[in-house]
């Protein structure tokens, strides 16, 4: 508490006036001869005590009224900080803006970020002179205090939504760190947010409270600019059936759509962009209408045929039409990129008769029915191992050796060169391998194989492949299934790997713990070895029943996933979710690096950055926009046309607000003051800074005291009741 007008506080001494008056201005009693004194005497003592009490009450009321009047005139003020702070004392103010895309929600034709900026500008105008201001947003930019108001306003003007927004707590860490370095005694932290549950979930509580503990004296304000009752239709996380797919297949796109607030009918359209002679053309591929109520969620699935698409990169977008009852525009559009390529060429080599050995794998990779319609993903060429020596291996994406016999060193050398240059080699070892020491454990073969082979292991009761709980990319699709019936397909014999090469990895094992599938990186290529064959016919000598068991779909799936893994590689990602410091990596296939490329941003802006000429991939850092990106480079002979898409994360559409209880739990003992308007903020901030002036309350109190004094004085002294007894014959006084 403090007095803004301290001199007037001395007026409180006037409270002594009624006391003095009471003491020195005592009424001289009037002398009256009165014979009926006996009636007076009887009640006088009790009356005197009552009278004294009444006097004291009235005296206290009068003195209190004068004291509070003095306090009011002296402008008694209640300060929350406890420190005596001048009205014009400068402050250190740190503003933190949530610039996540969610703040683009429009209400009253104004985005939430624009509303926050408007309030912040008014706040700046009301800061005391010489205050220092720092303005953070969730872009992660480092900032420092500035004393120039115009600079601060310019910074506010430049604030924009940030697709790869950091989370608020990380930004607050920087902000609080700066607050601890504040040069002014009064410190204020203003957080401009939409109070969404995603941002202020209780899981963040411990981290938030720990960092706020570093600046316990700072006043904390949350400026809530969120919509109380949001109305929005949101597109979720777009899913593609495959990002790379051969011609003659279909791209399946799954588009989750959800609704918040009210019922609305919407139209969803999807487009495909073509690049023809450097010009982008947009083709409407389909549309659908749907109606959703508050809380509804559904997934719309549509297909895009690649039948007529030339091999290359394709980009498209999904768009919600119409802005009616849709506050957030940013989640009305989703972008996607996929690659169409010719069927992957696979060379299947085996002992003669090759057609017999390769029958099962060929059928699994390119089913005859699809082969007739030219709709297979893989185009398989079958030859004997003897033909390998003269085959042109570079024409094939993958070379697969099925149950290979010992091969001459020259063949191993050719295979090594092929793999070293980036080729993919799959070896399915079987009975034909013979004595390994002579061939497979020899130096030429060991340059490719993942380890030395031991004598063939026999497992009469059968062991089984395991794919459960294995996150290897080759087995990722198996994780989507609820168990794979590998126990229907026992493995009786396999080649144990005794000395694992240091560059080799076990992808999966049998149930007996022995390696089943291994891989090894060799140069720019990769070798994959399966220690049991996939070409044995169903008889008692078969090493396994993987391709020949009843309904062998796990074999078909494993064969396809193996080849997809080998041809695609795990880096072939064309679709990204926006996040801080996002970087895109694009593999350059068939080209050993390009020195420079042209990058076209979603907004049409172009850049011509350098890249490492020897790298088989391009890395594009610092992605801050959502949309479709296009990369062009290479030479006229071997042009490179690549692209990728960036979308907002689905959390940016989650407009559900945190409840006051959840917010209190998140902030714990550092609960902030939540305001929704600039007027409210101005009043609370000023009250906190200058204290709550008690003038109106004191004047009201004085009025109440005086009224009470008046009423009591009247009650005490003004009673004029008639005597209760009156003679029946006594006439009314005239």
């Amino acid at each position, binding site marked *: 508490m403090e007095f803004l007008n301290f001199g007037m506080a001395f007026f409180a001494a006037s409270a002594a006036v009624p006391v003095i008056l009471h003491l020195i201005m005592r009424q001289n009693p009037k002398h009256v001869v009165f014979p009926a004194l006996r009636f*007076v005497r009887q009640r006088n003592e009790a009356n005197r005590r009552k009278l004294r009490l009444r006097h004291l009450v009235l005296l206290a009321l009068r003195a209190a009224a004068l004291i509070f009047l003095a306090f009011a005139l002296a402008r008694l003020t209640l300060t929350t900080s406890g420190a005596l702070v001048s009205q014009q004392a400068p402050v250190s103010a740190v503003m933190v803006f949530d610039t996540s895309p969610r703040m683009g929600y429009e209400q009253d034709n104004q985005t939430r970020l624009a509303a926050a900026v408007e309030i912040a500008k008014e706040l700046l105008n009301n800061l005391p002179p010489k205050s220092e201001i720092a303005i953070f947003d969730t872009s992660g930019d480092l900032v420092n205090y500035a004393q120039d108001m115009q600079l601060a306003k310019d910074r506010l003007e430049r604030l924009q939504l940030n697709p790869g927004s950091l989370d608020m707590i990380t930004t607050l860490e920087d902000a609080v760190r700066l607050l601890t370095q504040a040069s002014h005694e009064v410190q204020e932290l203003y957080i401009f947010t939409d109070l969404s549950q995603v941002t202020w979930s209780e899981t963040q509580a411990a981290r938030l409270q720990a960092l706020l503990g570093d600046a316990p004296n700072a006043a904390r304000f949350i400026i809530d600019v969120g919509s109380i009752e949001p109305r929005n239709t949101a597109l979720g996380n777009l899913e593609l059936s495959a990002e790379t797919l051969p011609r003659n297949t279909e791209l399946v796109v799954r588009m989750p759509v959800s609704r918040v607030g009210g019922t609305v009918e919407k139209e969803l359209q999807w487009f495909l962009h073509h690049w023809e002679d450097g010009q982008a053309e947009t083709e409407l591929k389909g549309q659908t209408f749907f109606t959703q109520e508050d809380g509804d969620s559904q997934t719309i699935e549509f297909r895009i045929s690649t039948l007529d698409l030339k091999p290359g990169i394709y980009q498209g977008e999904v768009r919600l039409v119409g802005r009616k009852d849709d506050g957030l525009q940013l989640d009305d559009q989703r972008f996607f990129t996929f690659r169409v390529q010719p069927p992957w060429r696979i060379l299947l080599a085996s002992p003669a008769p090759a057609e017999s050995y390769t029958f099962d794998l060929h059928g699994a990779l390119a089913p005859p029915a699809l082969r007739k319609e030219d709709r297979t993903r893989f185009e398989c060429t079958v030859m004997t191992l003897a033909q390998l020596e003269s085959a042109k291996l570079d024409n094939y994406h993958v070379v697969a050796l099925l149950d290979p016999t010992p091969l001459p060193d020259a063949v191993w050398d050719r295979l090594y060169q092929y793999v070293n240059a980036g080729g993919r080699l799959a070896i399915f070892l079987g009975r034909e391998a013979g004595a390994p020491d002579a061939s497979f454990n020899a130096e030429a073969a060991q340059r490719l194989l993942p380890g030395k082979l031991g004598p063939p292991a026999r497992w009469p009761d059968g062991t089984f492949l395991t794919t459960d709980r294995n996150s290897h990319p080759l087995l990722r699709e198996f994780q989507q299934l609820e168990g794979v019936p590998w126990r229907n397909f026992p493995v009786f014999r396999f080649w144990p790997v005794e000395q694992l090469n240091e560059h080799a990895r076990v992808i999966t094992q049998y149930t007996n713990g022995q390696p089943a599938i291994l891989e090894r990186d060799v140069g720019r290529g990769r070798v994959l070895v399966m220690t049991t064959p996939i070409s044995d016919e169903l008889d008692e000598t078969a090493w396994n029943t993987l391709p020949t068991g009843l309904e062998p779909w796990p074999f078909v799936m494993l064969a396809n996933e193996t080849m997809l893994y080998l041809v695609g590689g795990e880096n072939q990602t064309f679709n990204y979710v926006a996040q801080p410091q996002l970087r895109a990596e694009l593999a350059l296939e068939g080209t050993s690096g390009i020195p420079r490329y042209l990058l076209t941003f979603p907004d049409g802006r172009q850049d011509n950055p350098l890249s490492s000429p020897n790298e088989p991939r391009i890395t594009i850092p610092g992605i801050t926009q959502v949309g479709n990106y296009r990369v062009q480079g290479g030479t006229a002979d071997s042009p490179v046309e690549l692209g990728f898409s960036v979308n907002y994360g689905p959390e940016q559409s989650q407009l559900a607000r945190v409840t006051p209880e959840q917010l209190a739990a998140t902030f714990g003992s550092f609960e902030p003051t939540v305001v929704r308007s600039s007027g409210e903020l101005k009043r609370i901030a000023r009250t906190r800074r200058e204290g709550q002036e008690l003038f109106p309350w004191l004047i009201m109190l004085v009025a109440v005291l005086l009224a009470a004094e008046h009423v009591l004085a009247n009650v005490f002294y003004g009673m004029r009741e008639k005597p209760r007894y009156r*003679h029946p014959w006594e006439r009314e006084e005239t």
Partner: protein
Amino acid sequence: MPAAEQYLKPEVIRQISRLDLRAQFIVRGFLHGLHASPFHGFSVEFSEHRRYAPGDDLKDIDWLVYAKTDKYYVKKFEAETNITGYLVMDLSQSMGYTYRQELTKFEYSICLAAALCYLMIHQQDPCGLIAFDERIRHSLPPRSKRTQLANVLSLLSKLEPTGKTEIAKSLVQIAAMLRQKSLLMIFSDLLAEPEPVIQALRQLRHGGHDVILFHVLDEAEVKFPFSGMVEFEEPETRERLQVDASNFKQDYLAELERFREHFRRECFQSGVDYVPLDTSMQFDKALMEYLLSRRSRR
């Protein structure tokens, strides 16, 4: 208000100095207000004639006398039973008090006593006078002769309230003094301990006397018209007491009422007529009380 009734008001009577005239005016005012002869219905024997006066009942006109003399005479009657009345006056100093009225309690009492005496003599009732303070100071034996009125009024006009009083003791003396059953009309402010007084009244009643107790207080003593700080002084004991009168009025009135109620209840139980009066009241109250008492004695 008719002119005669003016004389029932103490402030009017105050302007008449002669006590006999006061008594006459009071009684005439009172009788005029009754609109009928107070003697109507009384069974009395014929005693004399007198000239007809307005207000007399026509049936009392003696038509034989009218036939002889051609003048209206009414027949006068004498009561079968005479009431021997005593006017008993309290001479305490407190009786000489008034705060703002025309008459002191004592003057008011004397006026009443004179009027009653007038009425009684007029009725052929013997009327005596006793005055007391700490003991009986003056005593006039009852007579019904017309000269008695002058004697009584003469003594009344000489009385002065000066000293301390012993009401109970004096009443006991009176009881011992009276041989014949009488009507005692006591005028006192009763500012003494009530219990001995009540005992003395019971003793009077026990002796076969009828008692009308006129409790005469000053208007200020009944209404307590004071405000602010007041220092009261008791005239007999000189005792002083400071009181904030503004706050005290209710308490005072309650206490007075309690006192009066006590007397009213005790007198009722003893067969004493208790008549509370104050000096602002008209005299007819007291006179009516006397007449009612007289009727009840028939």
